[in-house]
């Protein structure tokens, strides 16, 4: 994977690909009648310097793809961004990315452009996706001036939507991972969390197939319905 990125970056620098302006990047896809058994989904997780999108910064991006209901490990994204200027002393204990790793990270623009190319406009799933969405959109806008809206889906909604009344003991990624006995190789490593989230997604997609949800739109609707139900309960 890294080789691919390096290659891509070299190509770009040598002008073979040409400088990407946001207009030439793949267009985000809208959830429509694509079959879940055919389409590609991105499952993403970010590590940041903190929880506040207006102040904190993205320092690592981990993502895996789901293609036709399986996770091909050759198709993944695992990068630490070059942010030598950042103060990460507060969060270094959580994600384990130290100052040294940050200075050796990838040039942020390169990394983001590559991410957009790699994502190919496919729908993005994340656990508590609002958080990742805010951070990624902010970063893309600040660094590349990119502001196209992507389709995001929250796996934290997806799970209870397909497994209602499941006693997980909480709403976190850890709760669901524990419930299904997943082994998360290294918690709070972006790529590792992304893989765990993707494995949960596979479980949900399997259930979806059983319930006759066949298309992207069907999945999207199911999530929408679940959220409305949740909101109704809240009142």
């Amino acid at each position, binding site marked *: 994977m890294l080789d691919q990125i390096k290659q891509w970056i070299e190509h770009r620098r040598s002008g073979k690909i040409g400088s990407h302006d946001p207009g030439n990047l793949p267009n985000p896809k809208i959830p429509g009648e694509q079959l879940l058994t055919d389409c590609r989904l991105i499952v993403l997780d970010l590590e940041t310097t903190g929880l506040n999108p207006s102040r904190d910064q993205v320092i690592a991006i981990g993502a895996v793809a789901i293609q036709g209901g399986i*996770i091909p*490990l*050759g198709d993944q994204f*695992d990068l630490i961004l070059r942010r030598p200027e950042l103060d990460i002393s507060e969060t270094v204990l959580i994600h384990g990315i130290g100052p040294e790793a940050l200075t050796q990270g990838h040039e942020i623009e390169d990394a983001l452009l590559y991410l957009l190319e790699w994502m190919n406009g496919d729908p993005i799933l994340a656990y508590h996706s609002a958080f990742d969405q805010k951070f990624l959109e902010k970063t893309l806008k600040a660094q590349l001036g990119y502001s196209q809206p992507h389709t995001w889906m929250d796996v934290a909604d997806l799970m209870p939507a397909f497994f209602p009344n499941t006693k997980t003991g909480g709403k976190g990624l850890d709760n669901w991972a524990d419930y299904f006995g997943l082994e998360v*190789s290294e918690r709070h490593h972006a*790529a590792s969390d992304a893989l765990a989230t993707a494995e949960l997604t*596979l479980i949900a997609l399997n259930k979806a197939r059983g319930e006759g949800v066949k298309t992207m739109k069907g999945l999207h609707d199911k999530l929408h319905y679940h959220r409305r139900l949740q909101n109704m309960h809240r009142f």
Partner: protein
Amino acid sequence: MASANQENDRPQNIRAIMTFLREHAPFSSMDDAHLAHFAENASIQFYADGDVVLSPDQDVVKRFYVVKQGRIRGERHNEKEDRAETTFEISKGECFPLAAIIGERPTRTLHRASGDTFCLSIGQSAFVTLFSESEPFRDFCLRGVSSLLDQVNRRIQSSAMASIGSSTSLDTPLERYALRNPIVCSPDLPVRKAVARMHENNVGSIIVTDENRYPTGIFTLRDLRTMIAEGTAPLDTPIQQVMTRNPCCLPSHSDAFEAAMLMAEHHFAHLCVTDDEHKLIGVVSERDLFSLQRVDLVNLARTIGTATHLHTLVSLRTDVSRLVDAMLAHGADSGQVVKIITTLNDVTVRRVLELNIKKNDPGIPFTWLTFGSEGRQEQTLLTDQDNGILFQTPEGMTEEQVREKLLPFARKVNDELAECGFTLCKGNIMASNPKLCLSDKEWDDWFIRFIDASTPQNLVYSSIFLDMRAIYGPMEPLNGLLDKVLTRIRKNALFQKMLAGNAFQRKPPLTMFRNFRYISEGNKHSLDLKRQGLAPFVEAVRVFALANGVETANTLGRIDELVTKEVFDPKDANAWKEAYSLIQAIRMRAHQEMLANEEELTNYIDPDDLNPLDRRILRESFRQAQRLQQKLEVTYQL
């Protein structure tokens, strides 16, 4: 940067998959580059409980799978009973399918997820790359689980090697094996009395010591021979005039190598071992040193069979254990080893009987019977006595009168066998028990009651008395008895069914979810390899053997005969024999380890102490026991 630190260059998820793979065979013996190739080309798939993963209806198998989490069940349709039968189970870290992907054909078995299951899989091209480049992988794919069995056997051998290595090692300090009470005498003792003392103690040398226990001389059988042949001195000469003065001494902290060199140099057969103050503490003979290195079966059997004293027999027991180590190290399988142990045990029992008859002949011919594991020729080092006596009542005597003569004799034999390491039977299944010292008529009645009026208590005894063998005395009385017993059992369907039901109670220690089922014993997880592991095989096989007139008592022998009689399918039988032998091998290795650690021998092991490969094989072996029980269940409609 790429070459600087390959491991850190790999994405986290690839590293994690490699770590997972490394914990399981055959990946554990594969190179990192090959593991990385596997991980980078792998996909993760999820199957919910009951989902079909591979089916015979599908096309040629194009992917190779490893269970990452959960279980896969192999299902075959049983035509006769029109139901699905589980033929195998594949759990975490195990691979499938092997035959189908190599044979480039569809699978013949339906593979179904059992519980929520994640699999890693690689496509054909990655499979072919690994197959051609990684030898351990190729070996595994071609030979499947049997290549893993080899690995287990190799390890059993190498650990046995290690333990032989340590005992033969010539840097063992002398004090380790010279600390016996040496036979000594004072310098003024007449030769005749000194020789009498040697004879009494069955030794070839005597050390002459002064009042401070300093060794001043040694006198050996060779000296005696010279003395008599050359007529140099009468037998009442004080020993100091004929002894070899200033015997060779070594301090106890010297090692066996020094002793061996000294002996070789001076052609001494004996050395005195002294403490730091030069006082005698023991004697080492050439035999002591070299018996450590070469223990051969024939010689050992001969030594046991001609031993003239009980204490010799007792001391030879350690040689038996050493021989077991040597046999395991030389690749003997557990079936051979248990037979050798049984042979040596038989020789020991016979010799104890002979020595006792010599001393105190009860005067009545009898057949010495052994039951249970000894009867089945399946003894290990941990063995207790299960024996009895069969006699024919001489004219003019009552059975009670015969018993009056035989029982004290049997008591002595039981006690002496206990000294030799055959633990007294807690259930008093011993020849000295009046209920088990019976005439042929009484035994026959006994079995009639046993078979016709089966009580639960009787059935508990079935594992003992239905595995019977004569090891001393005339064989014909037992053969006659066995004929009658077998015929009676063959005719008695109810008894067979009760036996089968009893055998079926003895469940292999696996839970529904294919984990080990532990016997509760505090916090420690433990499995009883004999009662939980071997017994299900032994008991089930016994039922089939008795019902089909198989006379052998040995479990593996019974399985073979049941194949000949077309009761067992040869393939099933092989799997059962292999599984049974492996549990036995793991048990024997545990015994050797306990012995080496000077722990009391037990049949308990904690599967957590086993490596993943042994655990997996053990689990698979238990599953074979379940399959054998299924056959019992179907045959006897339990």
